[in-house]
Every structure is written in structure tokens, then in C-alpha cells.
């Protein structure tokens, strides 16, 4: 007996004990028997009764439904980026698989986003100058076509830069490195735009003076050939070879490029590094507020093949 029990003989117990129960009325058993005889057959069971088995199955089903709902919600949250908003890192499938199998996944460059809609192919095709140009009309037509190609290539370059920025951010995100916030990213893009504008201004000035020379040449009755447009640098075999080589490098994936540079003889690699540093320092001197701070992974040396001389 615990302290909470109602103590026998206490006033409360005495009060409770004054509760007699009348007996069942006479003929109760007969009435129940008669009712049992006239009772309709019970309805069949709606669901299988299996004691604890059925209960267990119902519980298991609820757990399964709950797990499925949770999985669907978690997948939706991960897919819509809700988890990232709360700083919950969502590992990629490759990382999860690598952690399960213990194998290191090869470092793969971020997938290249689908290429943006490029300007008309005709606008990007190099202008072909077959014969000599000896009239101002022909010259202005050649300038017009060259301008078209320049504009097209400039648009492509802008898109390429955007893609490279996006890829760099993706790579950093995949590697778990801190990402620039919106303000930093905007500042970076602004610096790149400024550098581009400056370079275009310089190229424009150079082209304008060159065109004036060519116009004067035509006005003097001389003819202008393809070599006048292309410029002396393109004719240089060493430059062409270097450009070809750079083009090959650009077409490689980052991993291939790294491997290629590693496999170079040390002297050649050193020369390349020196050249690259020199170019960087020159660029930094020219643009003290811009390219000196620009990450190498985002801004790469301008492609000279898309930079027409005129």
C-alpha cells in the first residue's frame, strides 16, 4: 500500500464504501440469450486481424511512408538549394560514393555550361580578303565587315568571361572553399569590365591610326592587300607557333593542362613561368587597380587570335 492509497477506515473510505450495488434484475441471463439468438451476424472484418503482426505491419507501413515523405522533402530541399541557405553543405553524389568506397574521385573540372547562343556564324567567320583593294569603297566595306567580326567576337569574349567566372565559383563551391558574396562578385565583374573597356579603347586607337594609314594609301592610288590588314606579327613564325601552342593549351581541360606543364622540361617550364610573371607584372603596371588583383583562375591572358589587328 502506498501513501497515495485510500486508507481503509478513513472518512473517505467510509464514504466510498456507502455505495451498494443492486443485483442484476431477474431473467437477465434469459434476456441476453434471447438477444444473442436474435442478433444479426457480425459484419466481416474490414482488415486482417493478426494481433501484433497486423499492428506491426501497420506501424511499419507508417514508418515507411514517413521515411519516404522525409526523403522527398529532403531531396526537394537539397535540389532547390534551401539547405545551402542554412549553411548545410550538401555533398555531391561522387563525394558520397567516394566516402563509401574509400576511393578518391578524380578531380574533374566543373561541367562546362552549355555554350551561350553565339552571334551569327557569319559574323564570327574571319574576313577573307582575296584580291588587292584599291578603291575607298572596297576599303570601307572591308572595314565594315571587320567591325562586324570584331563586335561578334567581343560578345563571345564577354560570354566566355562570364562562363569562366561561373566555373571558378563552381569549382570553389565543389572544393568547399569560401565563395565570394554578391558584392565581391559584382566588384570582380566590374574590374574585368573596366579592363576590357580599357583594352578595347587602346585597340580602337591603334586600329584607327592603322586605318587612317590604309585610307591614305588607297587615296594615293596604292593597293592594300591582306598582309596590310593582318599585320606583321601574324607573319612571324615564332609568334604563330606560340599562338598555336597557346591555343592547344586552352583547349585542354585544367587537369590535362596541369599534366602537360608538369611534363615539360624544367628549363622550358621555368621560361614559361617567367614569361607569365612578366606578362602579369606588365598588366599590373598598366592596370594598377584592376588586373593586379584579378585572380588568375578567372581572368586569363587575352586571346590574341580573336584580336584583329584592324
Amino acid at each position, binding site marked *: 500500500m502506498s501513501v*497515495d*492509497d*485510500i486508507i*481503509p477506515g478513513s*472518512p*473517505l*473510505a467510509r*464514504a*466510498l*464504501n*456507502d*455505495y*451498494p*450495488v*443492486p*443485483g*442484476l*434484475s431477474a431473467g*437477465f*441471463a434469459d*434476456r*441476453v*440469450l434471447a*438477444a*444473442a*439468438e436474435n*442478433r444479426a451476424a*457480425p459484419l466481416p472484418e474490414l482488415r486482417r*486481424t493478426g*494481433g501484433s503482426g497486423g499492428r506491426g505491419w501497420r506501424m511499419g507501413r507508417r514508418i515507411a511512408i514517413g521515411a519516404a515523405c522525409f526523403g522527398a522533402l529532403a531531396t526537394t530541399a537539397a535540389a532547390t538549394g534551401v539547405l545551402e541557405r542554412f549553411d548545410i553543405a550538401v555533398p555531391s553524389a561522387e563525394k558520397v560514393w567516394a566516402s563509401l568506397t574509400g576511393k578518391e574521385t578524380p578531380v574533374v573540372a566543373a561541367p562546362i555550361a552549355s555554350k551561350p547562343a553565339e552571334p551569327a556564324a557569319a559574323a564570327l567567320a574571319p574576313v577573307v580578303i582575296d584580291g588587292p583593294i584599291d578603291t575607298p569603297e572596297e576599303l570601307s566595306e572591308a572595314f565594315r565587315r571587320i567591325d562586324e567580326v570584331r563586335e561578334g567576337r567581343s560578345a563571345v569574349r564577354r560570354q566566355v568571361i562570364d562562363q569562366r567566372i561561373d566555373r571558378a565559383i563552381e569549382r570553389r563551391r565543389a572544393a568547399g572553399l569560401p565563395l565570394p558574396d554578391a558584392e565581391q562578385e559584382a566588384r570582380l565583374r566590374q574590374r574585368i569590365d573596366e579592363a576590357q573597356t580599357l583594352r578595347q579603347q587602346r585597340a580602337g586607337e591603334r586600329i584607327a591610326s592603322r586605318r587612317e594609314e590604309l585610307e591614305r594609301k588607297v587615296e594615293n592610288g596604292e593597293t592594300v592587300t591582306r598582309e596590310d590588314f593582318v599585320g606583321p606579327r601574324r607573319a612571324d613564325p615564332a609568334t604563330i607557333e606560340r599562338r598555336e601552342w597557346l591555343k592547344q593549351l586552352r583547349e585542354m581541360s585544367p587537369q590535362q593542362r596541369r599534366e602537360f606543364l608538369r611534363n615539360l622540361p624544367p628549363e622550358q617550364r621555368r621560361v614559361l613561368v617567367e614569361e607569365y610573371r612578366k606578362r602579369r607584372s606588365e598588366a599590373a603596371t598598366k592596370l594598377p587597380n584592376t588586373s593586379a588583383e584579378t585572380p588568375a583562375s578567372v581572368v586569363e591572358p587575352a586571346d590574341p587570335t580573336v584580336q584583329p589587328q584592324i
Partner: protein
Amino acid sequence: MNTSGEPATSPATHSAATGADAALAARLAARDSAALREAIALHAGALHRVAYRMTGDAHEAEDIVQEAMLRLWDHAPNIAARHPVGSEAAGALKLGGWLQRVATNLAIDRLRRARRLSGGEFPDSEDDAPLADALIEANERDLSARALIAALPERQRAAIVLTYYEELPNAAAAEALDMNIKAFESLLLRARTALRHAYAARAEGGAL
């Protein structure tokens, strides 16, 4: 405590231990009227006490007992199938406990329905006919205990009736109320506390 002199443990306790309940269930499943009469003789008294003390109404209590016995009649085939005579499960079958659970739940259902319909705690109708003095006195005494029990919520009322009046062990009472033992003990504690408070309030008000 059993004030009406009935045995605290019904004969069903012994019969369950020997597997007699399984045999009785088998006979009920075979639609043997004599078996039903036997089940009524064994269990109806205990069920009626519980039902009466919970509802405070003799007719209502009889209805509850009748309904419980008819449900046993209906479910007998299933019960017999799950506890075949001679098997290990047959020894575990306690028809008394099963009936106690059905009757308690029926009583709780009826109390809730009555409360919804009438908005009060007591049965709808009281007999207003003039009574002899002795009967009045006995009824007043009876009413005081009844009022104390009736002041409790349905499940607390069932807990007190099963453990105090029927002297069921807590485990059996918890089973009758389809609760786990911890929850039942908590319910019983609340019920006893409420009962003491109600008694103290009535004593102060001069009702006792």
C-alpha cells in the same frame, strides 16, 4: 474493497489459469447457448458492479453488461481461433479481463455521450417520486458516494472503480483501460487526489 460482499477475485481468475476460458470460448464459438449462460453466471456480476459504479444507473449498467456479453458472443469465433484449446495461448486467455475492458470502454462511451447530450455530469433523470424515510436516508448516503465518484472524469472514475472497489491489481486495471502501467499509475494518482479534494470540499460544505 468490495462493499457488497462479492469475492474480490472472480472465479474467472482460476478458470483462466487452467485454460477453461479457452474451452468456454470454443463452446461460445460453436454457438452453445449454455456456454453463454455460463459466461453470464461467471462474469456478469463483476461487470455489473463496475458499470453501475461508473454510471450510477442500474438500467444503464445492465445495458452495458448485456452489450458486453453479446460482444463476447460475436467475437467468440475469433477469440477461439486465436486461443485454440490445448495450446499455450489457451492458458493466457482471460475472458474476464477481456469483458472488463469491453464493459469499461462501453461505460466510458456512455458517460461521454450522456455528458454531451445533457451537458452535466449526472445521469439525465432522477427519480422524483416520494420515498419512505429509510429509503431517503439510504439514498442520501448512496448519493454522497456516487456524487464523489461522479465528480471524477470518466477514466479517473474507471481507475478508482477498478482498483478500489474491484481490487484489481494495477496491471490488470491498466489492461482493462488499454493503457500502459506507468500511464495508469499516473491516472490513478490524479484520480485519488481529485477524490480527496472533492471529499474535503463536500465535507467543508456540510454535504457529508
